[in-house]
């Protein structure tokens, strides 16, 4: 068990989160992708904490969990609100903001 394995995992998880966020239209998946990205940073922080033998990393990760929770709250509230308004969780269905007339 070497740190590199953790690092690889972190990198992959973060990237998967990124991929999910960009490529999916379902807002729930987008939300979970964000959470996954943030969580993968937690993994990194914990690994670093372990490598450096310093508690700070863990503390930061702890704080991050709170941040994740805060974001989650707002995100979920938003999804509920959006679904209520439009009966859809498809991000592509929210395209009212158009300035120029783009010929489709």
């Amino acid at each position, binding site marked *: 068990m070497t*740190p590199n394995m953790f690092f690889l995992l*972190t990198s992959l998880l*973060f990237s998967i989160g990124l991929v999910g966020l960009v490529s*999916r239209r379902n807002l729930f998946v987008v939300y979970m992708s964000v959470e996954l990205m943030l969580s993968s940073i937690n993994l*990194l922080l914990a690994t670093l904490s*372990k490598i450096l033998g310093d508690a700070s990393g863990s503390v930061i*990760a702890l704080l991050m969990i709170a941040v994740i929770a805060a974001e*989650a709250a707002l995100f979920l509230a938003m999804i509920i609100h959006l679904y209520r308004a439009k009966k859809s969780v498809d991000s592509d269905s929210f395209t009212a903001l158009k300035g120029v007339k783009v010929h489709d």
Partner: protein
Amino acid sequence: MLEISIFFILAAFMLGGSIAMITNKQTLFSAFGFLVAMIGLAGMFALLESRFLALAQIMVSVGAVVVLSMLTILTINAKEENLPKEPHKYKWIFFTSVLVLPFTFLLYKTLTLLPQSFSTMETITSKVVGKALFSEWVLPFEIISILLLSAMVGAIVIARKEIVKKEEHS
């Protein structure tokens, strides 16, 4: 050796869960994937001997956040036809995966520059964490509360139903 096998199992679960999360059409299945990944993460924390963190992960992330998400999903109970039809989903996933590669590679390569051994320090216990939290991390800890508060206010404002129902332009 045991640690390594545990790691691989956990990693497999996490990766599988997260891939399932981003590929599944059904939201609930995605959420299950996410749940698996989160639990895996808690396991990883434990593996890294961050017990407090593992516990917090289980309690907050899994117990609160993920469950809350699933509850929301169930509450909304988006029907099949309300879910987005994503005809080019895999194309998109493939394309973005290619696009994300330099980043992944950079991140990984950079991280490998770190020391390749774990310190021999004792387990990061809640005591250590608590000490650190209330010594040098007291300011972030304090303002986290404000963050949570503002997020709460925001969430309430956004999610509550309005009494006034009148379409207005901004």
